[in-house]
C-alpha cells in the first residue's frame, strides 16, 4: 500500500512506544524511519525487524554505556540504533563531530543513518557512516548506498569526511509499505491503544447527545 510519510512516522512512533520505548525515544524512531522512507530506504521494515528482535528489552541494556569513549558498546552486547543515534545527535553541537566514533554491534545499522545525517547538520561538519552493509556521506548533499538494508547487526564507523564517488539517492514524498511489515508494526502500535469499553465509549469522548437536531 502507498503511505504518506506522516502515516509512516506515526506508525513507527507508536510501534516503538508499543515495544517499550519512552515517548521521547519513540518520537526519535518515528522521525528516523520517516527520513529513511523519504529516500526510498526500507526504514519501516528495519524497525519492524528490530522491534521484534528486541521487544521490550530494557533501554539500559542497549544504550551506549560510555559516550565519552570513541568506541561505543552496550552493556548487553547489541546496541540500539535509536538510542545510539539520539546520543550522537545530542553530542553533535559540541563534542562528537570532533572525533571518530565506532559503534560496536549496532542493531539494524540502517536505522542509525538518519541520526548521523542530523549530527552532521547540527555539528556543521561532513560526516560519513560506513558499515558492512553500506556507506553514506552527509555534507551539503546526501550520498550513499545500502547493499544489505536488513542486516541485523554490524560494527559501524562514523568519521568526518565526504565521499563524492557515492551516488545521490532520490527523494520521495510517499512510501510503498507491504502489508506484512505494516501489520507487524501495527501489532506493536496497537499496544498503545486502550481496550474499548462501553463506559469509555460514552464518557471518554464526552458526547452522548443526540445529533439529530
Amino acid at each position, binding site marked *: 500500500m502507498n503511505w*504518506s510519510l506522516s*502515516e509512516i512516522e506515526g506508525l513507527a512512533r507508536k510501534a516503538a512506544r508499543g515495544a517499550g520505548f*519512552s*515517548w521521547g525515544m519513540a*518520537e526519535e524512531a518515528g522521525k528516523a524511519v520517516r527520513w529513511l522512507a523519504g529516500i526510498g530506504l526500507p526504514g519501516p521494515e528495519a524497525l519492524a525487524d528490530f522491534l521484534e528482535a528486541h521487544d521490550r528489552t530494557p533501554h539500559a541494556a542497549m544504550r551506549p554505556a560510555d559516550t565519552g569513549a570513541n568506541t561505543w558498546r552496550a552493556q548487553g552486547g547489541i546496541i540500539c540504533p535509536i538510542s545510539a543515534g539520539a546520543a550522537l545527535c545530542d553530542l553533535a553541537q559540541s563534542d562528537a563531530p570532533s572525533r571518530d566514533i565506532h559503534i560496536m554491534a549496532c542493531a539494524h545499522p540502517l536505522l542509525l543513518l538518519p541520526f548521523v545525517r542530523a549530527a552532521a547538520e547540527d555539528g556543521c561538519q561532513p560526516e560519513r557512516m560506513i558499515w558492512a552493509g553500506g556507506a553514506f556521506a552527509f555534507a551539503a548533499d546526501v550520498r550513499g548506498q545500502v547493499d544489505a538494508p536488513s542486516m541485523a547487526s554490524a560494527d559501524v564507523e562514523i568519521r568526518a569526511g565526504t565521499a563524492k564517488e557515492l551516488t545521490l539517492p532520490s527523494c520521495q514524498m510517499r512510501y510503498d509499505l507491504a502489508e506484512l511489515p505494516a501489520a507487524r508494526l501495527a501489532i506493536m502500535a496497537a499496544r*498503545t491503544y486502550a481496550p*474499548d469499553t462501553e463506559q469509555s465509549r460514552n464518557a471518554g469522548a464526552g458526547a452522548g*447527545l443526540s*445529533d439529530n437536531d
Partner: protein
Amino acid sequence: MQIDMPAAIAAMRQPDQVMRLDRLGSLHQSRLSFMRILLRRMKEEGWQVERHLFDIDALGTGTAVYTAHGPQHSYSLIAFANDLPPEKRSDRVIATEWDATFTLFDGIPTEDDIARLRANVPVQEAGRISQSELSLSRANRSVRLWDHVVAALAKGRQPDPAMIEDVGYLMRTTAVYGSGKFGAADRDATAGRPEFQAPYQIEMLSVYLTRTFVMDLVEEMARQAAPDTAVPLEPNLRRRFGIGNSTGLGMAPYLLNHPALLHAWIAARETALSRVRGLPSAQARHIEAFRQMLARAILHADGWRSDHPVQITKLADLRADLARLGVHLQDANLSDARPWDRLWHWAEDALTLEGQEQLVSLLLEPYPELVDDLAGTLSCDEDRQWRIAGDMSCARLREAVQAIYGWALDIDWAAPGADARVWYVSEAKLEPRLGERHLEPVAPYEQPLSPGRDAARLIAALDAFGKGTVAAFVLAHPEHRHIVRRAQIAARLPYAEIRGNTIGEDLLPIDMLRAKLSFFGACRFDPRSDRWVRITLFQNAPFPDELRDGDADDWTYPPLAAS
C-alpha cells in the same frame, strides 16, 4: 499611513498571562484567523470557482464537483451526497455514515478519479485516498433547519430568518482531515505553494467550497420537491448560513503536539496587539472603525447561543464586558497619546477574560497595515526546533524548567485531583479520549500530553542526577526525553507551551478546542459538554461569486443594519 514600527511596539504580554487555559479558552477570531487569510488571498488573486459537476437525484444522493482556480493551481472539492437514515446520524468519530462526504482534489479530477474516490470517500476512515487528495471530510445536516429551508423554498417562500439565526448552518462538518491522513498528500507536498503557506488553508478552502455546495444542494432539493413553485434563497439571507462544525477531543492534543507552531500562532497575535497598543496616537477614521466593530461585536455576542452552563456564564460575561466597554468609550479620550495602550490597561482591570480577549481581536480590526503581514509568520519549520541541545547544562535546563513550568511545580502531584485525567487513544477507530486515572484502567496507555506533571518529575530527576550536560542526562533517563525537548522548545519560543494542568480534575478540554478553533476563525462556540463543541464557520461570508465585487474581509461580525 506611515508607522515607525520599532517605536510602535508596546511590551508583549507575558506567556504566564497569555498561555493560561482559561484565557486560551476565551480567544476570539481575528484578522489573523485562517479563514480570513484564505478569503483575503482569494480576493486579491482573483480566484474563480466553477461548478464542474452537479449530479444529484430527488433523494439528494449523487456527486458534485466545485473547482477553485488560483494563479498557479486549481483545486476541486468532490462531494458525495447521501440519503442518511436519522438513526445513523452521529457527529462522533465512531460514526460510519454521513449526510455528505468530501475530498479536496489537487487539480481537476477525471472520471476515473471520481470513480476511485466514490469507492473510498463515503466510507471516510475505512477508505483510502492518495497523494492527489489534500483533505477528507464529512458533514451532517442540521435536520431542523434543513427540513424547514427545503419546505419553505419548495413553497416559494424564504425561510424564517429567526430560525437561521438560531442554528446558523445547514450542515456541520464532523471531521476535516488533511496533512497525510488516510493516504492524503503530506503537508510537505504542498507547503511550498504560496496559497498553502499559512496554516490550514487546505482545510479552510475545503470548508468554504463545502458551504457553496450545501447551499446549492438545499436549493436543488427544494426544486426537485416542487419544480413549479420552488425559489432560490434570497442572496442576503443566503449569506447568513455558515458551515457548522462539531469537534470533539481529537483536536485538543494538537496544541500540545505542535509547540513550535502554537508559539507561531500566539506570537503573531501578541505581536499584532503590541503594535496597535504601541501606536502613539489614533486617527479619527481608525477610532470610528473601532467603534463600528464594537457595535457589531455586541450584535454578534447577542446572537451567540449556548445551553452549556459554562458558556452561558461566559456569554453573560462577554455581553456585560462589551456593554461596559461601550460606556467607557463614551467618555474615554482616544485622541490622547497611546490611546489603545491606555484602553488596554483599563480593560485588564475592568473586563473578564472573555471581554479582554474580544478586545484584543477588536483592536486589530482597524489596522490591516499593522496586522495582516503577520499572516506570513503563522507557520514554522517544526523540525528545526525539534532536536535536543545536548550541550546545555542540567543547571541551565533546570532554570528554564522553573521559569516555564513554575505553575506546575507549585501543584501537589500526589493529590488525586492533580492527575485525575488520562489522555489515551481507544482501540475503536483510534479515537482520542480522556479517562479517569483513579477509576479506569487506562493509565498504561497514557499519551504524553501532561507537560506540567512531566516537568515536575523532570525537576526531581535533575536534582537527583546532579551536574552534567543534558546529553548525559537524557542518555541515562530516556523517560524524560520528551519533556526535555518540550522545555527546550519553550525556552526558545515563549508561547510554545500551555501553562495549565492538562490532566487535572478541573480541566475543561473545550478551552483547548476553542483556542485552536478561534485561530481557524470560528464563531459562536457552543459546548455540548466539557469536551465537545459546535461552532460556525464562514457565517455572513461572501460566496465565491461575490468575492470580486464585495469586501472579502468585512463579514465576521454581523452587519449593523440587519436587513
